[in-house]
């Protein structure tokens, strides 16, 4: 699905990613954990195409395409989805209105017909139920006046609407109480299929009780320094990151 090779990226001349390698196959869930400042959100931003970041070296192959050559919108149209750590409030732009535009632009890109208003509304009803998002919220302005939990549920709702091949959840669990966490995780699990994949970026092991990863990676100092099965997350939760830092720094 996605193969990241020796990825180097910097912002304002400061190198954040320093040779990151990662491969995710269809049907897999990968968790990326790591201490603050390790480059977790930078990775998400670079993959989504945020222009402030400059890729200085390396490659990203997304289903046979050179991802780094695509514009942000074309990445989305090819099936990449980023659930934002801080979803943006956009006053006056209604959630459903913008999603219909998004969905139709994606369909046009793929040479499909526009979705009918009726089918679209049916889709909204079906997908908003997955994250228990009130239909009223779905038609309100994008994230405006939403609580933290509602914003994150809205991200997963949008993900459900757009049905991406690869979803990257950037600290989707931060700021969520247990109930919201359960709802969000349940949404992600419902959407999981053998044809799509998920990268879960998180600071806490807690989310991984609900979204069970196939692999856990530790990102530190711009590289993946350790990978392992889901049990690695528990070990990190218990012991923190210092032992990994020590291990890396010793090398």
């Amino acid at each position, binding site marked *: 699905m996605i193969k990241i090779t020796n990825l180097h990226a910097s912002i304002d001349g400061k190198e954040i990613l320093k040779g990151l390698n990662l491969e995710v196959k269809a049907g897999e869930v990968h968790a990326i954990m790591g201490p603050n400042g390790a480059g977790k959100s930078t990775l998400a931003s670079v993959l989504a195409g945020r222009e402030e970041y400059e890729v200085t070296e390396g490659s990203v192959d997304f289903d046979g395409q050179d991802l780094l050559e695509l514009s*942000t919108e074309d990445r989305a149209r090819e099936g990449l989805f980023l659930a*934002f750590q801080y979803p943006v409030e*956009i006053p006056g732009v209604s959630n459903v209105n913008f999603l219909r535009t998004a969905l139709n632009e994606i369909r046009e890109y793929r040479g499909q017909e526009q979705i009918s208003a009726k089918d679209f509304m049916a889709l909204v009803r079906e997908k908003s139920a997955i994250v228990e998002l009130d239909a009223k919220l779905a038609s309100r302005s994008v994230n405006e006046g939403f609580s933290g939990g509602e914003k994150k549920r809205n991200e997963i709702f949008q993900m459900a609407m757009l049905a991406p091949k690869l979803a990257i959840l950037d600290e989707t669990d931060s700021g969520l109480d247990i109930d919201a966490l359960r709802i969000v995780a349940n949404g992600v699990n419902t959407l999981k299929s053998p044809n799509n994949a998920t990268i879960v970026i998180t600071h806490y092991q807690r989310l991984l009780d609900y979204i069970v990863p196939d692999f856990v990676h530790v990102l530190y100092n711009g590289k993946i320094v350790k990978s392992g099965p889901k049990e690695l997350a528990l070990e990190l939760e218990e012991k923190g990151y210092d032992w990994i830092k020590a291990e890396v720094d010793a090398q």
Partner: protein
Amino acid sequence: MNDTIQQNKLALFTENLTLSSLAFSNELKNDALTVLATNDFPTTRQEDWKYTRVGRIASIKSAQNQQNSSLSLPEMVDDSTLLFVFENGRFRADLSSSTIPTGIKINTLSSCKSDELSLVGSLVKLENQVFTALNTAYASDGILIHIERNQKITASIHVLNILSGENTASFTRNLIVCDDFSQAHIVQEYRSQGANLSVNNVITEVFVGANANLTIDKIQHEEQGNFAVLTEQVDQKKDSTFTINTITLDGTLVRNNLNIEVNGSNCESNLNGAYLLKDNQHVDNHTIVDHKVAHCLSNELYKGVIYDKATAVFNGKVFVRKDAQKINAFQSNGNVLMSDDASVNSKPELEIYADDVKCSHGSTTGQLDDEAIFYLRARGLSEKAARNLMVSAFIGDVLDKIENPSVLQMVQTIIQKKHGWEF
């Protein structure tokens, strides 16, 4: 030296104009001529015209165009609308509605006798006001709309003002009188057809009686190359509601003067404005709300989107006089600059002499939020679609205030045609 040159410009400008033959008082006309003889076109040294240069209007070799053009009428007018068309300040009976429902009197000013025009000039001030004086001295015609007491007019009254031809100077004078307890909806549309280097100068004096409710939708879309100086002077009596939606979508230089005197208690005044500018357009909205008595509410919301090298001016004044307690007055101006060369001068002003009021004013100018555009693009929208969506949401705040669906449809059509997006 400068003065002499300016003086010559005004004299030159009026050289080929025909004095107004409307039946309002000669004294008023003479006063206007005195103003013209003793003043120049305003310069940017005058506070009211600080950001708007009228040199391009002054240098028009103007004449009142007497020709009838073959005009195409607006597509939006539905059967129930009463339509009155003026071309270059002259009434086009051939294009206007002839049957008028009961409860309302509509006449051209040229067909009115002097006693019917006693209200002309009773609200606007002439002193040092060159454009008002020009209008008063040279007005060729205009409409008198008189809504009678207790009458609710369900049909929209659409007054279409069309500018045509080269170097045309058009002067139209309107009177709108809403008697007590009446209700009406009036559309004042300004457009041009094949016009260039022409100027439209219109004054509308509006009298809103006690408990009356009047809404004006003012839609401006004269082609580029033309100029407009449009004034509405409004008098509100007690318990009345007055709403005006000023939507400016085209024109090279547009100056709007909207002055509302709230002379009765328990009034509501709503001033909404939207302007979408591109190329080298310049739009200047000057508004005054003068709260003279207590217990009134005014809401002012102006929003603009400015592309290319266009410039906008917003100057909104709210006065709350000494004894006008318990006034709620809200004023807000927001602008989005869509290019590095776009600019806006925004000046919201409050002058409060009472001590128990709730007033606020504010002005914001910025660009579209890059983070929001990235967010939308990350969901698959093109950058253009993302920008259009955000612009339409921004301006939609104001456009949503237009209650009449056919007017809203007309605005949408014009925006779609001129700017290529929908809201």
